[in-house]
């Protein structure tokens, strides 16, 4: 019974082992010539012009949240609308509850000033 899973276990061990081996090897074999360029942040070839640890304005997140509210609504509404005729009346109630909950979220965001950019 165990034999059947032997490959799996070997794979686990090899996978883990190879990862460790490569880490150790690169640490061991790799040359270490530190230059200024090497120590700078890699920005896909661009010259980094200020610190990478930057803060985004919380407003970006708010936009993202608004997006989720509408996005999810659409994602669920669309198939629901397509299949509408085949669904039972319960589905209408369920969808209204769903929309109400989403609307509550939207309302909350609106009242907290999530849409106002300033």
């Amino acid at each position, binding site marked *: 019974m*165990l034999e059947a899973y032997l490959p799996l276990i070997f794979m686990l061990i090899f996978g883990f082992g190879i990862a460790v081996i490569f880490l150790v090897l690169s640490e061991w074999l790799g040359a270490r010539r530190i230059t200024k360029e090497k120590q700078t942040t890699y920005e896909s070839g661009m010259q980094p012009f200020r610190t990478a640890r930057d803060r985004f304005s919380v407003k970006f997140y708010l936009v993202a949240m608004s997006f989720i509210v509408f996005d999810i609504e659409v994602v669920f509404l669309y198939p629901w609308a397509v299949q509408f005729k085949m669904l039972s009346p319960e589905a209408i109630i369920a969808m209204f509850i769903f929309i109400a909950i989403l609307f509550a979220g939207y309302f909350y965001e609106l009242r907290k000033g999530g849409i106002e950019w300033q």
Partner: protein
Amino acid sequence: MYDLVIFIPLIPFLGFLITGLFGTKLKNETLIGTIASAAVGISFILSCILFYSLLNQHIENPVIVPVYTWISAGSFSVNISYQVDHLSVLFSLIVTGVGFLIHVYSIGYMHNDRSFARFFAYLNLFIFMMLNLVLSSNFLLTFLGWEGVGLCSYLLIGFWYDRKFEGTRIIWTGDAGNKAFIVNRIGDFGFIIAMFIIYVTFNSLEYQTVTELASGSYATYFNTGIMTAITLLLFLGCTGKSAQIPLAVWLPDAMAGPTPVSALIHAATMVTAGVYLVARTSVLFALSPVSMTVVAIVGVLTAFFAATIGLVQNDIKKVLAYSTVSQLGFMFIALGVGAFSAGVFHVMTHAFFKGLLFLGAGAVIHGLHEEQNIKRMGNLKSYMPTTYKTFLIATLAISGIPFFSGFFSKDEILWYAFSKGHWSLWLIGVTAALFTAFYMFRLLYLVFFGKERFDHHHIHPHEAPKTMTVPLQILAVLSAIGGFLGIPYALGFWFSSHPNMLENWLEPVFKNAQFIIYKTSTHIEIGHKIHIEEYILMLISVGVALLGIKLATDFYKKDELWTVPRKLATNNKRTFSLLYNKYKLDEFYFAAVVDPLMLAAKSFFWQVFDIKIIDGIVNGLGALTKDIGNYVRKIQTGIAQNYALLMMAGIIVIIAVIIFSS
């Protein structure tokens, strides 16, 4: 109806909570005293209700009133439940009735004490514990009450913790409390072991179950080692609580407490707990003739020796304390010869007259501003007429003068001792009765008659206030007529074939035990017949009492200089000092038990065993654990990556174990 029994202990407990928690805030003595007394008074009324319903309704088996099951583990369960039967109701009547009077008395006695509320809180707690003791339906709850009254006794003996008290190696009142507590622990140890054996033997701690099992197959249990062991261990507990030889030493020192405490706890109620326990387990005792004999012998020896010590004491409360010890001995004689109801009868009458004597003594001490030495009293009759009259009644009762309560109960005990064939018990008992009459009248004469030997300039004796004298009067009435509850057949045959009402009342409780004694004894039961011996014995004991009174009158009343007793004391110096120092029992215990133990404890168990070995191991283990802790906490690096690594390692190990272990 019988469910009311729950409230009997509960109400004093509420009283305890109120006076204990809010007593210092109330600041009003009358209010505190009223609350505390009322709590006990209500319990008394409830006891009366139960008494009447038992009187009107014949019940075969005790009524068990469960309150709640605290915990049940397997077959072992701890129930808080109360048992209503003739014995428990009688005791609860005594406890609450006398307790109520003493509460009322204490309002006057403790007037202006700075710990007035604390005193009443303790008293109420005591009543609660005592009621648990007597009303419980199982050994365990009785034991709880047993320990509880011990605690209250300790608290109340040392109530005036800043006062000094004289005794063997006793300096403060607290030391006396300690002594009482520690001596009692020895007895409690016996009680606990007895409970273990009872549980192993009968698989229950309920009185009802144990009694039924034991009496159901009495032939198998009769005279077995296990019964003797149980009863002797129980009796060891009783000797502690009821101050019998060999554990009698604590009671005289317990007089360090306030006098109402001495009256309530160390005369009327708590010390009779031993009698109660023996009566409650009468079936077990009946199954072991050896234990019965031991009980009787211990009782009679205690009765005799305590009486002899009482002859020479000069402290009013000490005389009464030894008298209590001696009277308790009488009760155990009764139990030992199988006359259980006679023993309980004496508990009741003794509660009346000894409570009264102590309260009277309290009134005297109060009137004389804390003077306790009877050699410095005298002629108080004219200052304190009420106290005197009540005291006289109690003295007559305890001496066994006909138709006072003590006469009936003591005489019944002596008659049973004789009729069951123990004439030696009877002889020693009668001698003790002679001494009793003598020292009680000596006390009476020295306190209330003769010259005024106190300091006139500083002490102005006065009668006690109403709250104190009314309880005295009530108790005096009870002491005078209480005995008519137990008129012996020989005196009452002309109006009833069962004139002894108390015996009839307690018949259902003791019928099993009596049956066993009847079945197993070779001695022929006497039954209710008139015996000419009984009258003769009665006459002898009355004569002996009168002789004691006569001697006391000759020695102390007629002769103001006490020439005879002085001469006796100087001629028999060694005997006198032996008696005066209580047969040096305290000194003997200290030399034989306490000092060696202390020495062993200090030099070996503490210095070597405790500090070096036990502490060494404990501290070592503790230090080791702390070291491990300091090491382990380093795993907690605070770096989330490390945590994730450990998690990952854990996951791999767990999955690996699951896959490989199949």
